[in-house]
């Protein structure tokens, strides 16, 4: 056990680990010492002086935020001098504060207001003219109001220490100091963390300011669905409209953090482009229809196609955007009701190969989750660009560097921003990541040969490898550059490293991991059992009350091939848009093939929020509910399961995919598919999926974040080559940036408006070689 010290605060004897700050020791023991500038995990300021307390044997009051607890210390936090000092600080703060609470956005949730009510003087003795500076718009979405600012420097620190952006700094001196941007606009990543962390109304956002009062809103803590990291975001709702998103109570695994998408990218939900009713194609045109018409139409057509071409003439695509429950029901529908394993989704992180490589190992020891990054002492990032594609992962990596002194190693083909935090890096030729990993694992080539192949010098490669050889408890994060057999190599190499290395596959979408876990795959069932695994088939068949196919299904590319050849005739696409044009013009012929294949189908059913390129080709289109209009769970890239809370009643005539699937099943004759809430589906998943055994509805309701572990399989995958071949067809999303996450973000006016700033930032970082 670590060394402890015992001290007395307000006559209460407490024991805390040595090195604990007095303010933390007090708070952990139910004694609240007020503060403005102190923020756990950011650097210390001692600037606001709100936390002045009395410490025996020191002549002056001490700031509790920088005072380290010592043995035998006696502190008082509510004595007369302390109370007077607090009142003085508040009186000082209010001398130049505009006191415009009645119109200020922050009124009602303002720390200065709350503190003044609790500790402050009710009146002011200040009769002089106040210092004034005009309000400024400093970015497309951020306003700074200097008179309201109390100079706690929280925004400066979150921007520098948290985000490594450094777009805000104090400008001027003394009472004239403001938080400035240096010139007319903020050169930043638009994360808006400065808005959340501001204790007063000095930093406000374009989308929220002067719209409402905080007490008129209802708050729903839910999960952001733009990327695979799974940040908590709280939706502020009024009149069934989302007014803002933030992390107002700084809880959830992201605490102080949200990126631009999590904060501003919700506005696609209320977009007027949303599908408003089901659509059915009549005389070459998609016409509005009722739900029962549309569902019955699909059920009837599916029945005909199945009768004529057999179950394998039908296929489905799930989505890394659907909840676990929705993906689970979709594969269950296909396997149980249609009777085929033709089901797949747009895969990004190669969880299947990771699962196979970890067979016979304790996955709880071998896998890394998003929280654990913060505690890592050594971190290796292969491929991807966490700053723009995995913003929370990047935030946590920076946290580990800042707070734990972690060393970061980067393998990438691009000069990504995270290199600024790197203790070592290899900049290799694009596409050579797998070869590098193979070399590290097997050393089948000479050092010189390997170095030449990846485009680095032998010395650089050798030094890098040596550094990693000594890196204990390495946290390894890899992007889609490492897939298939390369994952196997990576795991093999990791087992030779000191300590207990852990791995995480980075993926692109909110529920990429969940979709894989739920068995939205032609090769494996929920829990990563092969589709021909007799034991699992028997178990699932019993639970589902039916028989399941044991033939391998078609993967997404195979399905498109089969559509083109005319053997696949019916297709259900939930939340995916395979006809979306690729960002890379070289892939246009593939796009054209995809569109041609979809056009050949006898039945194309699409469930989506918008009339996507794919939906335009459909025979039936279901208007699906957005993340804000439905409940369920999502599994992030680290396997952590979180609850999506419904914040809005479905807009227009949209329905959650869970309801659509149930309704469709019933229309297909499965009358035992009852309309059950997501909780019942999750319970079934927890019962049948060994990786989700510990996930309970009640723990989720309590706000806990259970961590899943892919599977509990003890046997090796029967044919790993098959998995690896399938992985080779993975297509990482190339169009993603900090402001884009596929079709949803493209319907967010705020994100679309901010999109050009990505290039500006890149140029900025390049220019000043930060």
């Amino acid at each position, binding site marked *: 056990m670590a060394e402890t010290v015992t001290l007395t605060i307000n006559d209460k004897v407490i024991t805390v680990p040595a090195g604990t700050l007095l303010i933390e020791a007090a708070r952990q023991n139910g004694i609240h010492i007020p503060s403005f500038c102190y923020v756990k995990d950011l650097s210390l300021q001692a600037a606001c002086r709100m936390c002045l307390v009395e410490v025996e044997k020191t002549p*002056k009051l001490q700031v509790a935020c920088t005072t380290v607890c010592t043995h035998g210390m006696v502190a008082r936090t509510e004595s007369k001098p302390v109370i007077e000092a607090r009142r003085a600080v508040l*009186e000082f703060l209010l001398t130049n504060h505009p006191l415009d609470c009645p119109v200020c956005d922050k009124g009602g949730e303002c720390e200065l207001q709350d503190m003044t009510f609790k500790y402050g003087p009710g009146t002011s*003795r200040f009769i*002089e003219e106040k210092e004034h500076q005009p309000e400024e718009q400093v970015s497309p979405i951020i306003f700074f109001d200097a008179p309201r600012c109390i100079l706690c420097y929280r925004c400066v620190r979150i921007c520098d220490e948290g985000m490594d952006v450094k777009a805000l700094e104090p400008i001027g001196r003394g*009472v004239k100091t403001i938080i400035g941007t240096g010139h007319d606009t903020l*050169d930043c990543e638009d994360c808006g963390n400065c808005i959340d962390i501001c204790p007063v109304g000095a930093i406000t956002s374009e989308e929220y300011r002067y719209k409402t009062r905080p007490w008129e809103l209802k708050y729903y803590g839910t999960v952001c669905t733009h990327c695979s990291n799974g940040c908590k975001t709280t939706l502020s709702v009024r009149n069934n409209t989302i007014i803002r998103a933030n992390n107002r109570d700084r809880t959830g695994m992201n605490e102080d953090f949200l990126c631009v998408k999590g904060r501003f990218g919700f506005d696609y939900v209320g977009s007027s482009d949303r599908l408003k009713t089901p659509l059915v194609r009549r005389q070459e045109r998609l016409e509005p229809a009722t739900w029962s018409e549309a569902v019955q139409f699909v059920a009837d057509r599916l029945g005909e196609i199945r009768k004529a071409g057999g179950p394998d003439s039908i296929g489905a695509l799930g989505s890394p955007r659907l909840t676990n429950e929705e993906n689970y029901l979709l594969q269950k529908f296909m396997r149980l009701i249609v009777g085929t394993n033709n089901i797949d989704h747009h895969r990004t992180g190669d969880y299947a190969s990771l699962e196979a490589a970890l067979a016979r190992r304790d996955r709880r020891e071998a896998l890394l989750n998003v929280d654990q990054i913060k505690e890592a002492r050594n971190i290796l990032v292969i491929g991807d660009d966490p700053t723009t594609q995995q913003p929370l992962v990047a935030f946590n990596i920076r946290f580990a560097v800042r707070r734990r002194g972690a060393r970061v190693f980067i393998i990438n083909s691009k000069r990504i921003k995270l290199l600024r935090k790197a203790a070592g890096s290899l900049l290799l030729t694009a596409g050579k990541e797998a070869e590098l990993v193979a070399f590290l694992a097997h050393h089948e080539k000479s050092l010189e040969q390997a170095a030449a192949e990846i485009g680095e010098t032998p010395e650089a490669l050798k030094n890098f490898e040596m550094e990693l050889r000594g890196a204990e408890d390495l946290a390894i994060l890899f992007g889609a550059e490492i897939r298939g057999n390369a994952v196997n190599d990576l795991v093999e190499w990791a087992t030779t490293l000191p300590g207990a290395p852990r791995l995480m596959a980075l993926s692109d979408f909110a529920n990429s991991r969940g979709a894989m876990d739920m068995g939205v795959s032609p090769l494996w069932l929920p829990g990563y059992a092969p589709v021909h695994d007799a034991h699992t088939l028997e178990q699932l068949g019993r639970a589902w009350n039916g028989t399941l196919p044991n033939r391998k299904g078609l993967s997404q590319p195979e399905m498109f091939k089969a559509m083109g050849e005319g053997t696949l005739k019916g297709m259900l696409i939930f939340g995916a848009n395979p006809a979306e044009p690729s960002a890379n013009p070289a892939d246009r012929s593939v796009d054209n093939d995809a569109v041609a294949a979809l056009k050949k189908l006898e039945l194309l059913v699409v469930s989506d929020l918008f009339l996507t390129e794919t939906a335009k080709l459909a025979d039936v289109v279901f208007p699906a509910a957005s993340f804000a209009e439905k409940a369920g769970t999502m599994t992030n890239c680290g396997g952590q399961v979180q609850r999506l809370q419904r914040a809005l009643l479905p807009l227009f005539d949209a329905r959650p995919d869970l309801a659509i699937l149930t309704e469709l099943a019933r229309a297909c004759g499965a009358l035992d598919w009852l309309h059950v809430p997501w909780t019942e589906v999750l319970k079934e998943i927890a019962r049948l999926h060994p990786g989700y055994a510990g996930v309970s509805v009640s723990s989720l309701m309590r706000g806990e974040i259970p961590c899943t572990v892919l599977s509990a399989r003890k046997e090796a995958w029967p044919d790993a080559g098959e998995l690896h071949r399938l992985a080779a067809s993975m297509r990482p999303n190339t169009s993603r940036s900090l402001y884009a996450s596929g079709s949803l973000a493209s319907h967010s006016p705020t994100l679309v408006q901010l999109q050009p700033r990505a290039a500006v930032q890149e140029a900025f970082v390049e220019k*000043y*070689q*930060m």
Partner: protein
Amino acid sequence: MFSPQTEEKFSKLVSRYPSKRSALIPMLLFAQDEKGPLTGEIVDYVARYLHLTPLEVEEVISFYSMLTKKPRGKFHLQVCTNISCMLRGADKIWERVKEKTGLKPGQVSADGVVSIEEVECMGACTTAPALQVNYDFYENLTVERVDQLLEDLGRRKGPDTSPDSEQMESSPRRRHDAEHPRATRLLTAGMAAKDSRSLENFLAREGYQTAEKVLKSMNADQIIEEVKKSGLRGRGGAGFSTGMKWGFVPRQSPKPKYLVCNADESEPGTCKDRPLLEYDPHQLIEGMIIAARALECHQAYIYIRGEYRYLFNIVSRAVEEAYARGFLGKNIFGSGWNLELATHTGAGAYICGEETALLESLEGKRGYPRIKPPFPAVVGLYGCPTVVNNVETLSAIPHILKNGGEWYAKFGPEKNGGTRLFSVSGHVERPGNYEVPMGTTLRTLIEDFAGGVRQGHQLKAIIPGGSSTPILTADKIDTPLTFEDIAKAGSMLGSGAVIVMDETTCIVNVARVLTRFYAHESCGWCVPCREGTVWMRKIFNRYHDGFGRKEDIDLLDSVAKKILGHTHCPLGDASAMPVISAIKNFRSEFEEHLKLGACPLEKNLVAV
């Protein structure tokens, strides 16, 4: 973008520090010397030169008073109206400058020749009133001299205003105690000679011999022991034992250690480091060589306030001379000991005299004081063990090591070893810097050395240790100048700046001027100082103009007491103590203002 000379300065600068950013403030000042206002283009250039963002450059520019983004005239007149100058008629000088130029503060004349600015203490307190034209000092001003100066400037016949000039022939040599029969001359001993700053003169005075002896024959512990024995206490203001401070440096630390000389003299009333830098820079360098040996440090810096540019040039030249003779650099005196020494210029911020703010500034940042602990001895410059000592402290070191700690200690009473330079300014006959033994009484200093209160006037009040220390009433004149005795009398020995005020002085105005200074110099980091000093300034301005309310006296006292002891660094206390003592000792004067609705003594504020 810049001339080859300036570019050369830049490249020399960045080579002096382990972190490029440290070059930022001098670099901006040199850039401004050549190009004028710091435009976006210059900011961009400097940012890229030092691998910073433009914002990191902007935040620094905005912190230091001497750095500007606004245009200034070819001759920028900076008139000091702080306490010592004010007592000797600076307000008249300032009025005259405004009247003659017809300019408003910050305004540039139509032909671009002249601009004017009212500034805080520039370290010419014993030669007050004073102004600076760019970097040049004009001292002992009278209205007539101002007229003449403005005329010269108007004809563009100004003196050499190049920032590189070393000689200020236009300013008189600062008076010291050379002629006094009871003078005790240790640190000022060599200054009588005309070429006292030259290396030859210094060597003729056995200069550098002590350093050589120490380096060749003593170890760190022996040096520290000797300094402890001397009873030397920091001459910057806090008066902490120098030997003890040196002893705090963790010798076994694997990190490099740094020695920094604090030549950021800017406490109003204080200008005693100025002659030490100007007339005997080698004495300081020798002290630093010995100190560095004691601290086992191989890199030292001298941080000189920006306004002292001519001293920066003088000291830089002396450092070059010392290098040329092998007294600095590798293998000093063949002793095997190495020491690199570099001069560094500030750019106008009183707070940088606080040692941790100075270190931040030396690292190229805004001068915000750091959180203590850790103290610089453990975590200082670049996170390494660092000792920051005042110019006078370090200049005393060669004498202590030459003659022994006990010898030095005997000059003063117990716990107050040695001599000290006191800057006597204000209403005395002979303002000047006087070196006297510690323990000398205020009376001796003021009456014997400074010639007493100016003729026909009586002593009213004394600020004994610089503007930050409580004001004493006239009856305290027999107090000996030791840290303990002055504390007993109700004030502090501080920086040794004795500001003398006679009966014509309005104490409300004194407090007003001092409060204005602290409000101007508050860094803005912590709430009580940032908001409190400005609040007090506003009340004082209103009050002194005759718009006071009865409750304002208690309000001022209360505001000052709410700053006192609650701030991040001592600047808060410094702003509060003069106000509290003014009200405590001169309350009736505040009440008289209320009664009259105006200052009862305003008419007496005339030039001496």
